């Protein structure tokens, strides 16, 4: 069957819900939180209309949402959930549990700022705070990437038995409508066959115990296996991304998407929807003669060190755009990128711009202003300061 996309105008949240439907998820356990709610509402609608045969558990908290997903996934079922900010933080303990139990749960997290003060707007600190839980993280730039991301996530997660978070921006994607090219069910089924679990709880002839106490003589190797699975995941992500491109025309074989990199003096590096703005701005800056490019980090975990090195080798500077902050240090992507390059000896000049926290507007004009600043840094070869709180009211 030839691929003729089904075009639908949907929000990022509906794109996520359709992807879950097309991935034939079998169990959904979720708890409401703005701005995630419409994902689960849409799935409930699919069930109510008879479009999907899903066991749906309306749990009493996010901690229980992830716990129920873990139980369901341990039986061998394909499981989906979604959350945001405070909900994700409440899940934290169970995120470790899901990864430690090697369960390929896929979750959409709608990036939202952590309180207090209360905020429902876009900010990446919620998901980046879950960096060390053992989950893979994919940051979507637009609604199409939300849809594609969920479908690819199942294939990758179920290959390496590591749970995966697909991350979209509050409101900027979650509640904004765009055309999304969806894939006919038969073709999704060809791309994403039913799950083959690492283990199940239903073989009663050969009972197992999952998650039993491991003494210091054994725990270490359990961790090493997860580390290896993340390394393996890099290869799987690239091959699945390539296959996706061959089947459906949208290539995801690169963990970092780049543009104008060949002759760029410096690149903007960032994640998520703000990179859409950056791409728009870079097109304009190029017309104005700026030698700039962009590097959109799609996968934050596993971290694409090797691809970052290739980029770093070809530019003089990297302007990192962090819609997040680690108190007492700096933007989180900035730390990661610097750390990844340290031992390579390849060290373009790098500056960290803290932008858009708590949903502060980040526009093409802002990118241009940062380009102006970064140009001076690159030309002079001198870093005036490492961290720029770009929007600060003065």
């Amino acid at each position, binding site marked *: 069957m030839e691929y003729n996309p089904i075009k639908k105008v949907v929000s990022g949240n509906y794109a996520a819900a359709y992807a879950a439907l097309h991935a034939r998820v079998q169990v959904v356990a979720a708890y409401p939180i703005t701005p995630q709610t419409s994902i689960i509402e849409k799935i409930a609608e699919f069930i109510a209309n008879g479009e999907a045969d899903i066991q749906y558990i309306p749990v*009493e908290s996010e901690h229980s949402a992830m716990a*129920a997903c873990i*139980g369901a996934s341990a039986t061998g079922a394909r*499981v989906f959930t979604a959350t945001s900010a405070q909900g994700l933080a409440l899940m934290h303990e169970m995120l470790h549990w899901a990864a430690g139990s090697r369960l390929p749960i896929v979750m959409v997290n709608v990036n939202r700022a952590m309180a207090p003060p209360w905020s429902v707007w876009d900010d990446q600190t919620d998901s980046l705070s879950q960096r060390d839980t053992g989950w893979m993280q994919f940051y979507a730039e637009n609604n199409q990437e939300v849809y594609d991301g969920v479908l690819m996530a199942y294939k990758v997660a179920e290959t390496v038995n590591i749970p995966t978070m697909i991350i979209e921006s509050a409101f900027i994607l979650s509640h904004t409508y765009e055309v999304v090219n969806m894939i006919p069910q038969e073709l999704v089924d060809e791309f994403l066959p039913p799950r083959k679990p690492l283990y199940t709880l239903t073989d009663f002839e050969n009972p197992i*115990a*999952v998650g039993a*106490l*491991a003494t210091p003589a054994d725990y270490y190797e359990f961790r090493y296996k997860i580390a290896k699975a993340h390394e393996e995941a890099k290869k799987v992500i690239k091959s699945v991304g390539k296959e996706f491109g061959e089947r459906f025309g949208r290539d995801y074989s690169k963990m970092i998407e780049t543009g104008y990199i060949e002759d760029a003096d410096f690149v903007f590096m960032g994640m998520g929807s703000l990179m859409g703005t950056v791409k728009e701005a870079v097109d304009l800056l190029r017309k104005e003669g700026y030698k700039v490019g962009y590097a959109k980090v799609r996968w934050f975990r596993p971290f694409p060190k090797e691809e970052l090195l290739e980029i770093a080798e070809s530019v003089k500077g990297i302007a990192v755009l962090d819609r997040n902050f680690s108190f007492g240090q700096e933007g989180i992507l900035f730390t990661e990128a610097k750390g990844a390059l340290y031992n390579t000896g390849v060290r373009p000049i790098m500056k960290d711009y803290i932008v858009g926290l708590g949903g502060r507007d980040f526009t093409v004009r802002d990118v241009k202003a940062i380009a102006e600043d970064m140009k001076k840094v690159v030309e002079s070869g001198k870093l005036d300061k490492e961290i720029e709180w770009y929007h600060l009211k003065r």
Partner: protein
Amino acid sequence: MEIPEEVKKRLTIPFEENFFAGHTACQGCGASLGLRYVLKAYGRKTIVVIPACCSTIIAGPWPYSALNANLFHTAFATTGAVISGIEAGLKALGYKVKGEDGIMVVGWAGDGGTADIGLQALSGFIERGHDAVYIMYDNEAYMNTGIQRSSSTPYGAWTTNTPGGKRHLLEKRHKKKVIDIVIAHRIPYAATASVAYPEDFIRKLKKAQKIPGPSFIQLFAPCPTGWRAPTDKSIEIARLAVQTAYFPLFEYENGKYKINMPNPKKEPKPIEEFLKLQGRFKYMTKEDVEALQKWVLEEWERLKKLAEVFG
């Protein structure tokens, strides 16, 4: 010893053994006895979920397991949620869950993991009506972490964080009636049980298996280590808990209460008989004992009235 098949069939406690020697429980442990009965009642076609509790350790470290059934270890607060998820997963995959020939999904959690940190997940599990059995084995404190009080610890008990001492810092709150909270959900089936009455416990487990929807059993499980009691007195202590009406055995089924033990028409034994075998109560003053006795009898009267009105 070979036992003839026809004899095995007539046993009130199933002969089949699915909880094996080699587990790491203390001597006289009520919880391990309870888990043994659960697996006798339900057999191998069972998925047991164990949160952080003594049984995490008792079941054995990787790569061992004392259970001849599938076992999923989970985090402290999550028993109710994980059994909900397992039930949903099994149904999504087309398995029959609960009932005579279905897969049994069993949550096996301590009193801390049920009455305290796991209460919310327990409530969610019952309210949503999942086909699973939740068993709270009640040893009346956080025993696995070293005997700290829980909301299920009785009035007057010594624990490591209610140590007595000059200021008489004993547990000063009465035991939380978790089963009342469970019944407030109008659950299809709830019961109390005791390791001192295994036939009653097995009967209740079987009933919990047959009745669709969620079931809850609160199992009284002495802990000689934490109760500062001789290891050969566990059953005697558990029996006295029932005979003093400190821990009466009853069932709640289809909105009706039924008292099993002790006999509601007779005076229960005085609470001292239950207290005196256990070192944990040795710091209680006369007034403390009176306060506990008063509470026990008030609660007993209350239960009897419930059984009269909703019997």
